[in-house]
C-alpha cells in the first residue's frame, strides 16, 4: 500500500507485494527459530534457582537472550545481585547501538519509540538493516520483533514449567547447557580476528580470576578486555558501528548484529 505514494523507481519494487511477502517470510522464520531458545532459557532459569514467575518476568521485561542467560547463570552460581545485574547489563550495551541505528532507519514517534525500544534486539535489528527500502525495514523490524517477543515469552513459560518438573538439573546435564548456550550465542560473532582474540582473552581472564574474585565478578572483569581492545586496537572490525543507514543498500555488509541463529 505505501507504494502508491512513492515514485515508481527501483527502490519501491522491493516493497511490492512479492517483496513484502519475502520480508514477512524472513521475519517470521527468524522469529520462530529464535523463539525456540526460549525453552532453554526457561528450563535453565529454573535450574539456576529462579521461580517460574521470575523466568517469565525476565522474558517479558528484560527481553534480551544473552542478558537473561547471564543474569540466571550468575545468580545460579551464587553470585551477588550486583554481579548478576552488571553481567546482564554489560551484555545489553550493544542494544543501545542498535537503537541508534534503528532510530535513524525507522524514525518511530511518540509511544512507538517505547515499543520499538523493547523490541530492539539482535534479530529484529538484523532483519531491519538488511532490507533495502524504508517500508521494508519497518516491516522487517516490527514483524521480527513481535514474533520473537510472543514466541520467546510463550516458550520461556513452557521451558520453565518443564524445568520445574525435572528434579535435579545435573542429572539431565542442564548445568552444561548454559555453557553451550553462551557458546552458541558467541559463535556467530567469531567471524573476524579481533572478536576471536577478545573472546579468548576474556575467557582466560575469567578463568584465571575465578579462584580469586567473588562469583560473577570474573565475568565483569572480562569486559575490561573489550574496553582495552576497543581503545587500543585501531585497525580491524568496523563492526556494527552505527554506520551508514545509507540511502539504498550500499555494498557494505549490514552492520551484522550477530543474531543467535543462522
Amino acid at each position, binding site marked *: 500500500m505505501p507504494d502508491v505514494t512513492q515514485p515508481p523507481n527501483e527502490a519501491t519494487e522491493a516493497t511490492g507485494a512479492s517483496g513484502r511477502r519475502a520480508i514477512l517470510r524472513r521475519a517470521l522464520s527468524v522469529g520462530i*527459530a529464535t523463539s525456540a531458545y526460549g*525453552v*532453554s532459557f526457561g528450563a535453565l532459569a529454573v535450574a539456576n*534457582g*529462579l521461580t517460574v514467575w*521470575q523466568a517469565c*518476568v525476565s522474558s517479558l*521485561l*528484560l527481553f534480551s537472550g*544473552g*542478558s537473561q*542467560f547471564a*543474569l540466571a*547463570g550468575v*545468580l545460579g552460581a551464587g553470585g551477588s*545481585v550486583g554481579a548478576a545485574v552488571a553481567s*546482564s*547489563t*554489560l*551484555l*545489553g*550495551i*550493544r*542494544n*543501545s*547501538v542498535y537503537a*541508534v541505528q*534503528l*532510530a*535513524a532507519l525507522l524514525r518511530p514517534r511518540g509511544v512507538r*519509540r517505547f515499543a*520499538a525500544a523493547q523490541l*530492539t534486539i539482535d534479530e529484529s535489528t538484523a532483519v531491519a538493516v538488511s532490507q533495502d527500502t524504508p517500508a521494508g525495514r519497518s516491516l522487517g523490524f516490527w514483524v521480527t520483533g513481535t514474533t520473537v517477543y510472543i514466541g520467546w515469552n510463550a516458550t520461556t513459560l513452557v521451558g520453565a514449567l518443564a524445568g520445574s518438573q525435572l528434579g535435579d538439573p545435573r542429572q539431565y*546435564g542442564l548445568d*552444561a*547447557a*548454559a555453557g*553451550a*548456550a553462551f*557458546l*552458541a*550465542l558467541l559463535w556467530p*560473532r*567469531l567471524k573476524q580476528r579481533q*572478536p576471536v582474540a577478545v573472546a579468548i*582473552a*576474556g*575467557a582466560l581472564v*575469567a578463568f584465571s580470576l*575465578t579462584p580469586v574474585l567473588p562469583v560473577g565478578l570474573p*565475568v565483569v*572483569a*572480562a*569486559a575490561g*578486555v*573489550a574496553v582495552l581492545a576497543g581503545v587500543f586496537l585501531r585497525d580491524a572490525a568496523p*563492526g*556494527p*558501528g*552505527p554506520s551508514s543507514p545509507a540511502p539504498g543498500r550500499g555494498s557494505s555488509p549490514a552492520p551484522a548484529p550477530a543474531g543467535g541463529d543462522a
Partner: protein
Amino acid sequence: MTNWIAVLAASAAAFALKLVGYFVPSSWLRHPVAGRVSVLLPAALLGALVVVQTFSVGGRLAFDARIVGLLVAVLALWRRAPFIVVVVLAAGATAATRAAGIG
C-alpha cells in the same frame, strides 16, 4: 527476594539502554571507540561466561562432565546445528557422561 531485585533491576537497566538509543542524537554513539567496544563487549563477556559456566562450581575451578558437553557443543556448532540442538546435545552428552559414572 534477591532474585526478584536482580530480575527487576536488570530489566530496568536493559530497557534504559535500549531507550537511550532512540533519544540521543545519533552522533553520540558514532565515536569509533564506542563502536569498537560495543562490538567487542559481547565477545569478551560471552567468552568469559562459557568458561565460568563450564569450569567453575560456586567460585572454584572444577573439571567435570560439563567439559564433554562443551566439546559436543563445539562440534554441533561446527556442523551448523541450530541453537536449540546445540544446547540439547550438550546437556545430553553431559548427562550420559555422568550416567556412565565419569565426571
